[in-house]
């Protein structure tokens, strides 16, 4: 911690002396912990410290970046000159900004104090408990491929030539279990997860139940005859779809012609029942933060209000280009990446019906519980997707047999317009982007390819 702080101060002092443009330091460091149990023994154990510093400089209106994981001060001149050389290559006319800072910042809770008191031994024991409970849950569970607890603590700092000096600490704990079921011939795995910011979030029974049900239900699950079918996307599956296509709400993509929502602000782009919000300020949201990657305060933004696109998501560059304010969605895919745009906590507002009631309303169709191959079978630009899916047939409003090995195809832009009703069962995505969504019932049938 102090090593990184000293390095940043020395870098700031060097830049003040040697840079004739504006400059900024984005630094992060932290600790991570991971334990994986197999057969009651520690299979993998990892405990780490990390640090990374990104330096960027704006010269003649152009921004260049350089970064390092080494906090040895003799590397400072090379870091600064690499950023300056990179700035000299930039040709894009879009103006970039080093932010002067805001008067006030929100203070969402993102640090669970209680996590500090959970010892490594407790984490190991919890992972063992997960494995044991999964093995005892059903005779069909023959083994557990992994029973893992991960935790992390991290600090983000931004300091710049305008005197901005921001710092935020966050932490997190999560556990997951992968039970494997067998019927003597075939095997199938399930995935159960729990996590959050306190002890109470470590709910072994809940995680085990989900993983075990998944492993057993889809053991030997058959396909279906290819057909156009009505579809319910269960909450976590719809979270994954939203995550895959969340980039269509990025103003950067829109300004580059890579989102079909370009120029649609103020227009109807989704069904009346669709309201999407992005909120960096909720306590203990997985995507909450006091400031974004440019130091702009986190805020709440209604993106789609009853089907109408109110705004896209902006950072300083794209907001300036569009003549609007940043929505606080500047983000970096890692400390060394240039500033881009992503969602904070992005939520589809729930409706009133339970998943069972949505099934009753649908009558006949398929409830899709999992989609995979998102990076291969989904085109974030065109909205087209064709994804391997698992789920259950729904017959006469009741959940029927499990189905796997089918492909569901459609288009996300069309999907937004065609949602008949969101359910009440909001799921919070724990890994990847912080997306929250209930299950949704689609109006028109989708193409489901099987046999």
């Amino acid at each position, binding site marked *: 911690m102090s090593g990184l702080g000293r390095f940043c101060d020395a870098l700031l002092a060097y830049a003040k002396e040697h840079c004739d443009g504006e400059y900024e330091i984005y630094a992060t460091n932290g600790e991570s912990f991971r334990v994986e149990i197999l057969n009651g023994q520690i299979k993998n154990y990892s405990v780490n410290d990390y640090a990374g510093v990104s330096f960027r400089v704006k010269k003649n209106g152009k921004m260049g970046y350089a970064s390092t994981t*080494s906090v040895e001060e003799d590397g400072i001149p090379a870091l600064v000159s690499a950023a300056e050389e990179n700035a000299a290559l930039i040709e894009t006319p879009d103006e970039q900004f080093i932010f002067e800072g805001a008067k006030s910042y929100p203070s969402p809770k993102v640090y669970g104090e209680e996590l500090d008191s959970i010892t490594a031994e407790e984490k190991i024991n919890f992972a063992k408990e997960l494995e044991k409970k999964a093995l005892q849950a059903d005779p069909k569970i023959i083994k557990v491929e992994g029973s893992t607890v991960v935790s992390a603590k991290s600090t983000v700092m931004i300091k710049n030539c305008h005197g901005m000096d921001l710092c935020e600490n966050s932490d997190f704990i999560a556990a997951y279990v992968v039970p494997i079921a067998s019927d003597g011939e075939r095997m199938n795995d399930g995935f159960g997860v729990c996590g959050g910011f306190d002890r109470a979030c470590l709910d072994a029974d809940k995680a085990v139940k989900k993983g075990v049900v998944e492993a057993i239900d889809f053991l030997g699950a058959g396909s279906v005859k*290819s057909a156009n079918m009505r579809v319910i996307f269960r909450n976590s599956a719809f979270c994954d779809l939203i995550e895959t296509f969340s980039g269509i709400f990025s103003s950067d993509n829109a300004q580059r012609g890579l989102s079909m929502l370009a120029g649609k602000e103020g227009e109807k782009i989704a069904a009346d029942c669709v309201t999407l919000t992005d909120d960096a300020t909720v306590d203990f949201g997985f995507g909450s933060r006091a400031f974004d990657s440019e130091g702009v305060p986190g805020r709440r933004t209604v993106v789609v209000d009853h089907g109408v696109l109110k705004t896209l998501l902006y950072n300083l560059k794209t907001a300036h280009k569009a003549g609007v304010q940043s929505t606080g969605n500047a983000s970096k895919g890692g400390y060394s990446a240039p500033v881009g745009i992503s969602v904070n906590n992005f939520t589809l507002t729930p409706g009133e019906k339970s998943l069972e009631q949505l099934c009753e309303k649908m009558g006949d169709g398929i409830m899709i519980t999992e989609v995979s191959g998102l990076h291969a*079978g989904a085109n974030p630009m065109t909205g087209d997707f064709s*994804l*391997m899916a698992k789920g259950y047939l729904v017959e006469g409003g009741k959940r029927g047999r499990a189905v796997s090995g089918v492909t569901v195809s459609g288009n996300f832009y069309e999907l937004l317009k065609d949602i008949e009703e969101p359910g009440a069962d909001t799921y919070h995505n724990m890994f990847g982007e912080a997306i929250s969504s209930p299950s949704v019932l689609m109006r028109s049938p989708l193409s489901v390819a099987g046999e």
Partner: protein
Amino acid sequence: MVEKRVSEAVLLRAMSTGADYAELYVEDTTAEGVSMIADCVDSANTSRSKGAGVRVFCGTNSVYAYGNGTDEASLLALADKVAAAAGTARSAGIDLVLSDVRFEPLCRAETAVSSVPKKERAEALKQAYFAAKNYSDSIAQVRASLNSSVKRVYLANSEGVIGSDERPYIRLAVSSVASDGSENQSGFVGPGRAAGFEFIRGLDLEAAGREASRIAVTMLGAGKCPAGKMPVVMDNAFGGVVFHEACGHALEATAVGLGNSVFCGKLGQKIANEKVTAVDDGTIPGEWGSLSMSDEGERTQRITLIKDGILTGYMIDKLGSRRMGMPSTGSGRRQDYTYAPTSRMTNTFICAGNDKRDDIIAATGNGLYAAKMGGGSVNPVTGEFNFSVMEGYMIRNGKICEPVRGATLIGKGYEVLMNIDMVSDDLVLGQGMCGSVSGSIPTNVGQPMIRISEITVGGEIE
């Protein structure tokens, strides 16, 4: 990168509580990237990643710690961390003699990228970019990037090995978007090599750019692919992603060593059509997936995975070797010091057969021709995979006909292997990044043109 004396002290300290193997990995990587969009260079980045990791085994259990300090005190602190987690026993009298092992460099940069002015690198990128952009009026957007890195790694382990490796990488990527106003389609090329700037100087940059745009424009006019089971002819090069996903991952010790692969216990058995012979070969000089030294301080090998349909080998790292009771195949790899190594692929491909391309198409009658594949993924437990077809055409009456879009191929690895019934004589490799438990690493996929007699195609229901 590290004094022998320090490495010895770190390994001994790491093993001081009962571990029976220790390993120190130190890395110093400098990566540079420049990218273009909207006719302008819009981003240029330089990053240095320097750090170390210490790993110990106690039987088949593994403890790993990493940090960004590489001085003696930091390395000893890592050793203390793993020792504390490894156990409470006291190991007395460990003999440790380290000696340098020379790994003949397979991948060299004749022209170090750092010796080429950044302006010249940007000019090369522009050639590819503008060739893509000017290919057709319907090209709405092109993204292009030129990324390079030099990874210097050092490894010392308690088997007495000290080794080091310098790995140069360079890759051009061009992604084109064609639009007719209401609909967009994309195309991609990404040639790369474990080499220096001479690779870019020897590459037809404009042809690469045009190819990305040709795919996008072709797909723009395409109708949707029909869904259902049908024969599929998959072309060479990146078509090998099928084998990578459907079979390669399930032959890694990561899956096999824990009994989580459909190919467990199948050595010597027929798992594929007799037309199929496949290898993982990390020893091909200059190839994208090649390594002089594995990330566990071993020589890479040419591993015959399948010989005439019979399973003959797995890809095994040191921990997998302990779990499986089989020798390591030098397959331990990791993205960087923030990951412990595990069994991974290098250059993995189906070997050339005897069929001719034209004969394969003619013999197919009606089906799908997958000219260019997109990415994919696989579940090693069930063997289920899926991947997208970037450029596809219908085959009718033994002839390649109209282009189709939106096709995905899904199935189970072991079924598809049995159904590969024609293999042509034109093997080509294709570059990709493979993501798994030890991070994202450069790997080559590859194959000649092959035919799969039947596979489920996801698309539009007619």
